[in-house]
C-alpha cells in the first residue's frame, strides 16, 4: 500500500459536539476543523477538559447520548460519515479507523487471551479461517517486533507489562488494515523508557505502513518528538494550527506560548 503517503484520510470541518440538554448543555467541541494525511502524524494538544478526547470520540462515532455531534462534517476517505447510515459508520470503525487509549491494561479484555482478541477482530473484518487469522495475528505482532508467536497469543493482559500491552493494542488496532489511527494519550501512563518504545512503534507504523495518526496528548515533548503538524486546542476550539517547527519556533497564539513556557 505504498504510494499513498500524503493522501487525506480524515477531514473534519466545523465539528461541534454537545453534552447535556437545555440549560445544562456544555459545548465540548466548538466548531473545530482538522485533517490527517496518510503517513503523517497530526497532534491535537490541549490540557484536560479542553475537548480533545471528545473530538476524537466524535470522529469515531462513540459519543454516548445525551451527548451528540451537533454539527459539522467528518470525511473519512472522502465520505461524510454523518450523512451515511449509522451501519456504515460502525463498519468503518476497526476497518478504516481505529483508536488506542491511555490505559492499555484496561482496554484489553482481562478474561480472554490476547490471541483470541486479535483473531476475533481479524475475522470480524475479513473472511478468513481461524488458522489464517492466527497467522495474520502472528505476522502483525512480528512486525511490531513482538516475538513469541503462539506462546504470546496465549497470554492474558495481566501477564504482560504496560508497554507490551500498548504495543499489542497498536497491533490490534491496525490488524484489520485501518489506515487512520487515533491515539488518545498513548504514553501518559507509562515510564519514560517504555514511552520511548511506544513512540518508536508509532513512528514505525507511520513510516512503514503509511498509517495516518491523530495523536492526542498534553505532553509537548511527545509532540516535539513525533508530530508533523500541530493543532492546539483550548475550551473546545482550535486556537492554533501549523507545521510542528513553526509552532515551536513562532507560536502565534498567546496560549501556545504559555504552553511552551510552562514546560519544566
Amino acid at each position, binding site marked *: 500500500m505504498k504510494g499513498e503517503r500524503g493522501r487525506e484520510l480524515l477531514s473534519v470541518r466545523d465539528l461541534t459536539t454537545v453534552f447535556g440538554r437545555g440549560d445544562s448543555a456544555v459545548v465540548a467541541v466548538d466548531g473545530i476543523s482538522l485533517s490527517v494525511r496518510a503517513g503523517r502524524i497530526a497532534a491535537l494538544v490541549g490540557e484536560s477538559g479542553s475537548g480533545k478526547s471528545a473530538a476524537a470520540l466524535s470522529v469515531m462515532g462513540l459519543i454516548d447520548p445525551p451527548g451528540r455531534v451537533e454539527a459539522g462534517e467528518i470525511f473519512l476517505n472522502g465520505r461524510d460519515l454523518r450523512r451515511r447510515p449509522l451501519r456504515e459508520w460502525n463498519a468503518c470503525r476497526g476497518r478504516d479507523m481505529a483508536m488506542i487509549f491511555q490505559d492499555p491494561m484496561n482496554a484489553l479484555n482481562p478474561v480472554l487471551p490476547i490471541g483470541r482478541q486479535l483473531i476475533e477482530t481479524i475475522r470480524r473484518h475479513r473472511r478468513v479461517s481461524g488458522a489464517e487469522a492466527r497467522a495474520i495475528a502472528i505476522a502483525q505482532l512480528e512486525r511490531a517486533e513482538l516475538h513469541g508467536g503462539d506462546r504470546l497469543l496465549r497470554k492474558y493482559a495481566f501477564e504482560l507489562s504496560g508497554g507490551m500491552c500498548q504495543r499489542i493494542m497498536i497491533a490490534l488496532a491496525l490488524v484489520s488494515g485501518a489506515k487512520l489511527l487515533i491515539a488518545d494519550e498513548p504514553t501518559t501512563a507509562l515510564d519514560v523508557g517504555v514511552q520511548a518504545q511506544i513512540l518508536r512503534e508509532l513512528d514505525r507504523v507511520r513510516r512503514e505502513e503509511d498509517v495516518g495518526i491523530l495523536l492526542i496528548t498534553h505532553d509537548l515533548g511527545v509532540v516535539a518528538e513525533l508530530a508533523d503538524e500541530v493543532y492546539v486546542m483550548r475550551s473546545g476550539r482550535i486556537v492554533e494550527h501549523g507545521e510542528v517547527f513553526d509552532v515551536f519556533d513562532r507560536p502565534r497564539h498567546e496560549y501556545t506560548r*504559555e504552553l511552551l513556557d510552562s514546560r519544566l
Partner: protein
Amino acid sequence: MKLLEAVDLTKVYADRASGPFGRSRPGPPAVDGVSLELRRGETLGLIGESGCGKSTLARMLLRLEPPTSGRVLYRGSDITDWKFGRMRRVRSRMQLVFQSSAASFNPSFTVERIVAEPLRNAGVKSAAERRLRILETLESVGLGAAYLDRLPAELSGGQQQRVGIARAIVLRPEILILDEPFSSLDFSLRRQAMELLAGLKEQLGLSYLFITHDLSIVGRFCDRAAVMRRGRIVEQRPGAELMNEASHPYTRMLLDSIPARHPADRTYRLDRTYK
C-alpha cells in the same frame, strides 16, 4: 546533618507459590543492599522506572514496611526496631505526598476534615486550634477559607494536590517524601506545584525525598539524585550534574528516553536501547 539514613537495606518478598499446595520461596530482592542518606535541607531525587524498588525503599525509610535486613537511622538513632508508640512521635516528623492525592482522600470528608486528620492523630484536641492551624496551612498552599467545606470531588486536580500537600505539612514535619507528586497533573499545573514545593521547602525548612521516573525535572529540582535499577542504586550524583555527566549506561538510556524539547532535537535517539 543526616536526617534519615538507610544502611544496607534489603527487602525480599516471598515469590508466588507454585500451585495451591506449593511452598512460597523468596523472590528476587525488591531492594538490594541500598545505603542512602537524606541530609537536612536538601532535595534528594530517587529515580527509576516502575518496579525498580524506589517506593519499597521509601516505605522502609518511613518504617511502613519492615526491612528483611539493614537499618534505618533517623537523626543518628537506629529506629529499625522501634515499637509503634515510640515510632508515633517520629512519624509526625516525616510525611508523604502521594502521586494521586484524590485517591488517598476519603471522598466523603471535607477539606477541613482531611487536613485535620493528622492533627487529631497527633493529639491536638482543641477544635479551635485545629481550625486555626488548618487555615494557616491551607493559606500557605494557596487555598483560602472558602475551601474548608469543599469535598474532594468539587476540586480540580491541581487543588486536590494542594490539599494533599496541606495534609502533609500541617504537622510541620521535617521530611516530606514526594512520590511522583506531579505525574497526575497537567503540564501547566506541574510548574505551579513545583514552585509551591520549592517555596514551602524554603519557608518551613523541609527536606525532600523526591521519587520520580521523570529525569527531565531532576536537574532543576534535586540537589542530589540517586538512580535505582532492579533494587540497587547504580549512580549517585549532584542533580545538576546528572543531565550532562551521567556515566552509567542505564542512566544514559533514561536520559535519552526523555522526549525532545524541540522538533529539531529529534534524531535517531529513539533507536537506542539498553538491555
